[in-house]
């Protein structure tokens, strides 16, 4: 109990953020060093520093590094998106999928993969557009003299069910071509390159920066609409801003890694257990922990059944829940 209170003091929270940062750096280094080619940290640093060219350099710089950055950014994006939505909706079950980003991004991705397989370049922008537009649609559908969290959740669930049905129908009639699509719907980082990162990194970094910058307003919003208005917050404006930021983050993440949504649900909860629900710390903490989680899951997936690999989404969905439940039992926790 004492220890938990210490964690929630300001120095305690900064320490937790520092530990998370170290964990993330460690997991990235681990992921760089492991695989069919094993390298020590010293070798890695030397190769990246001197850039000698050759096969080792190619593997490190053009295969592992962009994939790790993709994973870390996707994890950060989904986790912050989830943390924002849990705050805005005042609902612990909120996750990126709830505003329709997964279903919209999924459908757009499936359409591109099946109808225009020769234009795989379009996959990332199409998934992004699908995810973001669906989130906007859900927002508009939930609008009635302002948007209440409950209406937003229900509209999101309804739209997701419809788009999911369309996706399923399309997949059913194209079963023979559904292999690549499956990868996308599970959530995977296989063969992600600098190209993927280039397309989405700016959206992710912008979304993260905007969310961190205005995190105090999210704290005020968490006190409820009436109290927030009484404190002089432009409730509808702030809510729209944060939902847009969450949609941007989730859409950009989905466009890189597919539907890796579970990270967005559990990462914020795990961080909240330790440092509490102050979004000024929760958002950066979720970003670091989400990045760590996805990096570790992807690394585990790469190593699990060599020479083949398991998608990060499967590892996340297999190992995430037991870990999460174990924490949930050990901690007296109210979201």
């Amino acid at each position, binding site marked *: 109990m004492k220890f938990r209170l210490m964690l929630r003091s300001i120095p305690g929270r900064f320490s937790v953020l520092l530990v998370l940062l170290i964990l993330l750096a460690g997991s990235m280094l681990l992921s760089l060093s492991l695989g069919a080619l094993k390298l020590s940290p010293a070798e890695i640093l030397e190769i990246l520093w001197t850039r000698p060219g050759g096969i080792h350099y190619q593997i490190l710089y053009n295969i592992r590094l962009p994939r790790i950055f993709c994973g870390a950014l996707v994890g950060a994006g989904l986790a912050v998106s989830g943390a924002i939505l849990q705050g805005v909706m005042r609902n612990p079950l909120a996750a990126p999928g709830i505003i329709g980003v997964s279903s919209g991004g999924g459908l757009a991705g499936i359409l591109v993969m099946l109808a225009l397989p020769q234009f795989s370049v379009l996959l990332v922008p199409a998934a992004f557009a699908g995810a973001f537009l669906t989130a906007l649609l859900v927002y508009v559908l939930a609008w009635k*003299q302002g948007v209440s969290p409950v209406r937003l959740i229900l509209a999101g669930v309804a739209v997701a069910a419809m788009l999911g049905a369309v996706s399923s129908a399309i997949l059913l009639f194209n079963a023979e071509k559904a292999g690549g699509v499956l990868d996308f719907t599970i959530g995977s980082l296989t063969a992600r390159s600098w190209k993927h990162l280039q397309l989405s990194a700016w959206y992710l970094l912008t979304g993260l920066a905007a969310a961190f910058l205005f995190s105090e307003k999210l704290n005020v919003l968490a*006190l409820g609409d*009436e*109290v927030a208005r*009484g*404190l*002089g*917050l*432009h409730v509808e404006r702030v809510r729209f801003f944060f939902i847009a930021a969450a949609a941007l983050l989730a859409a950009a993440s989905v466009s890189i890694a597919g539907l890796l949504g579970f990270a967005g649900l559990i990462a914020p909860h795990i961080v909240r257990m330790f440092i509490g629900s102050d979004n000024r710390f929760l958002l950066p903490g979720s970003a670091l922990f989400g990045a760590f989680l996805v990096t570790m899951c992807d690394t585990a997936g790469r190593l699990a059944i060599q020479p083949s690999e398991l998608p990060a989404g499967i590892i996340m969905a297999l190992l995430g829940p037991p870990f999460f439940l174990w924490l949930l039992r050990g901690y007296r926790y*109210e979201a």
Partner: protein
Amino acid sequence: MKLEVKGLRGGYGGKPVLDGIDLAVEPGTVATLLGPNGCGKSTLLKMIGRILMPESGSILLDGKAVGQYDTAELARKMAILPQLHHAPGDLTVEELTAFGRFPHKKGRPGLNAHDREMIGDALRRTRMDHLRHRPVGTLSGGERQRAWIAMTLAQEPEILLLDEPTTFLDVCCQFEIAELICGLNRERGITVLMILHDLNLAARCSDQLVLLKDKRVFRAGAPPEVLTVPNLREAFGIEAKIIPNETGVPYCIAVGSVRGETQ
């Protein structure tokens, strides 16, 4: 801060809950809204606190329409405590109180010396300073209500709107909260408009009682003028006994219901 409401009409879409409300609260006084459930007390308070938009009519604070104020500017003059409020349970009393400084910060991160002074003052005045590091979720009902009042105090309001601040509290806590509010009014000249259900508590600490009925103000005035047998029968449908006491504050006891007979 002087509050005037003129010809106010509005509700939640469709039929208005309030129609033709006229009301004035003089600076530095305590006014309490009374009336049966569903008579629109909370609606009126929310409209004054710009949480709900009225359909028509005007609400003036020191002669200026509420809608003309920038929302943050208004929050530096007027604090409102809704009936139902919910904070993340892990928030400490001090952190909750610090939210009262939000409208004064204008986007500046962190707290400055004046902010800290106001937070400390609000905690002391509500006798919450010894609990400042306690999570709000672990407080008793009375302590929690005091913590929320501390937040509104840190806002440095000139006028305070409170929606049933004593509901769900035991008798002692009800008294304590009422004493606190009256004390703030006496010592700091904060104008108070609140909703109470306890008629005697309202009579004890208010300069003006405002009885609502049928979408409008039924009676308004000093407690002895408003708390009369016919008024209570008309507004609440109760048969009451009024016992005058030595302080001049009437004391009333409900002895029966006449609702069935009047309708």
